[in-house]
């Protein structure tokens, strides 16, 4: 059996690092990724397209999201099996209930694993989150009750690899990898973690289109081939659109804004797609940060997100700290204070720029 697994598309999710215009484009990119996944399913001639939850965000669905999903999956040339997750949990007002799905679409509705015989001797066991939180592990107390090959499809948190995955995630429908074979499943097709994980007993495909920086890299839809004896082979297929780059330009020394701009321009050369830019480092005390224009350097990109400048005037603090002046006292006092490193840098820059008569630059930094 050949199954194409995807998860965590998070249609209609906000992109809080971006302005709404970029956010709109990103949301469209996520839809485009789903379209490519459906096309990939046809191209690979899979036996089913499996969606392991968090297909959309329930609290943010747009009026046409349901129709988009209905049309997309309706166009699929294979069965589409959906196991709702914690963001698209199956409830009374769920899109899953409202959409008139085409006959090839199956939405698992129970909060326990239920069987769907995809082919003789091959069963998919799927389950749904029925609430946005506090969903128990689907494998707890579960055991396959039939012969043949069984594969699980659900949205859950594998606890063994939890520490290595995204921090701040709550343990939704937790399980440990060893529960998979104990339950009689040959493999578990799962969603929730956005970083792909092709583990022995389970597969996380990751979110195909990044939602945040740090999620760039290999991710997409996983072609899972299950042999008659339950052995699994996998192949990750990228389906994302424009590449993402989170770049940091470390200015070692710049004596005027043009040098900063040139270093940034060089760093952006050859890049395409979505770029988040951090400009950090030291510049000569005379550099006009207020007049520094960087947004225009991203004209060739789909989006350029510029974080607040982390440039500080390159004062020789150790030399200044030796001075028996107000400036020397100021530097020593600030360095000896209990302020955080970033606070110290900001306060030192503010005081020293002010002593140089250039406090107006602070508003731009």
């Amino acid at each position, binding site marked *: 059996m050949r199954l194409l697994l995807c998860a965590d598309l998070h249609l*209609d*999710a*906000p*992109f*809080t*690092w*971006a*302005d*709404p215009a970029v*956010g*709109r484009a990103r949301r469209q990119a996520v839809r485009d990724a789903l379209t490519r996944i459906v096309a990939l399913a046809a191209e690979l001639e899979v036996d089913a397209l499996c969606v392991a939850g968090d297909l959309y*965000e329930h*609290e*943010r*669905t*747009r*009026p*046409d999201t349901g129709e988009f999903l209905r049309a997309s999956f309706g166009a699929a040339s294979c069965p589409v099996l959906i196991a709702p997750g914690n963001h698209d949990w199956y409830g*009374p*007002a769920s899109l899953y*209930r*409202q959409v008139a799905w085409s006959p090839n679409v199956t939405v698992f509705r129970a909060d326990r694993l239920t069987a769907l015989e995809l082919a003789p001797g091959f069963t998919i066991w799927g389950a749904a989150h029925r609430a946005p939180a506090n969903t128990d592990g689907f494998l707890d107390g579960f055991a396959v009750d039939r012969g043949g090959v069984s594969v699980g499809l659900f949205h859950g948190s594998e606890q063994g690899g939890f520490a290595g995955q995204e921090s701040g995630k709550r343990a939704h429908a937790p399980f440990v990898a060893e529960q998979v074979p104990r339950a009689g499943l040959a493999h578990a097709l799962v969603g929730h973690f956005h970083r792909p994980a092709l583990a022995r007993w389970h597969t996380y495909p990751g979110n195909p289109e990044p939602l945040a920086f740090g999620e760039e890299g290999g991710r997409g839809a996983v072609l899972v081939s299950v042999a008659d004896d339950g052995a699994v082979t996998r192949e990750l297929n990228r389906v994302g659109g424009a590449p993402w780059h989170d770049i940091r330009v470390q200015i*070692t*020394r*710049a*004596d*005027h804004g043009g*040098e900063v701009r040139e270093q940034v321009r060089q760093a952006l050369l050859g890049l395409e797609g979505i770029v988040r830019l951090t400009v950090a480092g030291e510049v*000569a005390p*005379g550099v006009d940060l207020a007049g520094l224009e960087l947004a225009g350097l991203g004209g060739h990109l789909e989006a350029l997100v510029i974080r*607040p400048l982390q440039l500080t005037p390159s004062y*020789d603090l150790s*030399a*200044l700290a*030796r*001075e*028996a*002046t*107000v*400036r*020397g*006292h*100021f530097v020593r*006092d*600030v360095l000896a*204070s209990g*302020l955080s490193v970033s*606070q110290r840098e*900001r*306060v030192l820059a*503010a*005081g020293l720029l*002010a*002593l*140089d*008569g250039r*406090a*107006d630059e*602070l*508003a731009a930094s």
Partner: protein
Amino acid sequence: MRIETVTAHGFGPLAGQKLGLAPGLTVVAGDNESGKSSWHAATFAALCGRRRGRGRPSAQEQQFIDNHQPWDGGPWAVSCVVRLDDGRCIELRQDLSGKVDCRATDTGLTRDVSAEIMVDGSPDASAWLGLTRAGFRATACVGQAEVLGVLDAADGLQHALQRAAATAGSAGTAATAIELLETCRRTAVGRDTAAAIRPLRRAREAVAAAEESVRAATLAQADFTAVAEQADQLSAEADAAQRQAHAAGDEAAALAEELRSAGRLEAPAHAPRAVASTRAVPRSRRWLVGGFLAVATSLLAAAVVVGSGVLAAVGGIVALVAGGAIWGAAAGQATTRPYLRVAPDLRKLQQEWSEQHVLAEAALRRHHEAALRAGRADAVRAERGLSLPSVAEAEERLAAAQRELSRVQELEETLGLAIGFLAQAQEQVHRQVAPELTGLLRAWLPELTRGRYVDARMDPALLAVEVCGPDAVFRRAELLSHGTAEQVYLLLRVALATQLTAGHDTCPLLLDDVTVHADPGRTRQLLELLHELSRDRQIVLFAQQEQVREWARDRLDGEFDALIELPAVGLGLAGPVGRSLVGA
């Protein structure tokens, strides 16, 4: 620290020349174009070198390059030998063009000590004084412009002292810096009051507005979801009612079939109302039913009117029953109204049949009502969907507003902290400096002014200097005669140099034509003062006035002081300039 020699290997018009300096007061005298300013700059460069950094030089550095690169195009290099207070003799070599061959060597141990004073890539001897290059220039190098500035400005002396205290004179005063920060806080942050219009208030209002937008969008989304859910529910109810109607219709049809099978169909006394079908009745069946009814009606009419007999009557009843049964099977509800009369033993069956018709009718009514409501809910859903605000976009706007608020709040915190630290540092330094300066003034003032002024005091907050004569009336130092003000200023510069280099080597002073605008009396007073001050620190005075040379020839001894008379650069003299010792 005392500078023993300065060698200009290549510096402006100077090439391969050496200047030997006395440990006390050295007067370097020469006419215009004799290279005084070049020697002054070369001395500074030999001590402090140049910043070694990538990128284009600053405007000040560029000016230094333009003014002092070798005229003959040779290597741009200077060196000097200094003796530190701890007795070490150090040779400093500064490669000013490549800035590569720069080093400080302890000549006694022949050891490279550059690491002790390496600043921005080249050795800087001002580090031994606790200063920076800029600080040394501002503290130890005094030019005529500065003296004039102090004399001409209303609060020039106080400002100069504040600058010196704040940044060793290399930048602004602490008070000005604090005021700049306060201004920045007013304009770039502003107050957080309802009437305020500055960024902080605007950012707060933007966040509040964005939060409200998110709330509104979330509510609208919830409302939309509820409407959708309601429409979905009503649709489900309509479907259920339809299913019930179908079931009741089917049940009625089955009962009718039973009645027909019993062959005892009669029109009931109170026949049930017909139930309209919700199913589409096939046209062929409608024609079939019509045909049966037509035959039945004809036969019955013949039996009654013509009296054709029992057979005709029986045939009519059979045809009627068959037509009813077909209709029931087709739709469960007849579009016609079959009036059936049953025998007493079949009344129960007929009653059930009637009840099923009523149930079907009620279910159909519910279906119609639910379908109507579902349709309305669908219309509402579609209408609200058109204007449904995007929760995601509202959240993105809120995040942007929160970022801006955080930025402004962070700036407010930074400015507040910087102001606090600066004010604290200013108070500490002023409290430290004021008594030192006052003490020096009190010690020197009576002698320098020949008793005209006998006491001095200083406001530690502002470093405002006041002096008083025997009448004990204090006057602001800026309001004194230029001669006295000059003396006070130079005294305070020396005191500041002492203060700012406290704990480090003694700071030499390099004075460039500071007497050029003074009348002969003031010039003599200044020279005497400098001579006195040079007992404790090395002073190098570059001067062009003949009066200064004469004074130097007359007053400077050969052991501790020196007069160096520079020849005109145009004479093309090369080699060591040497030291003209006067009075030896």
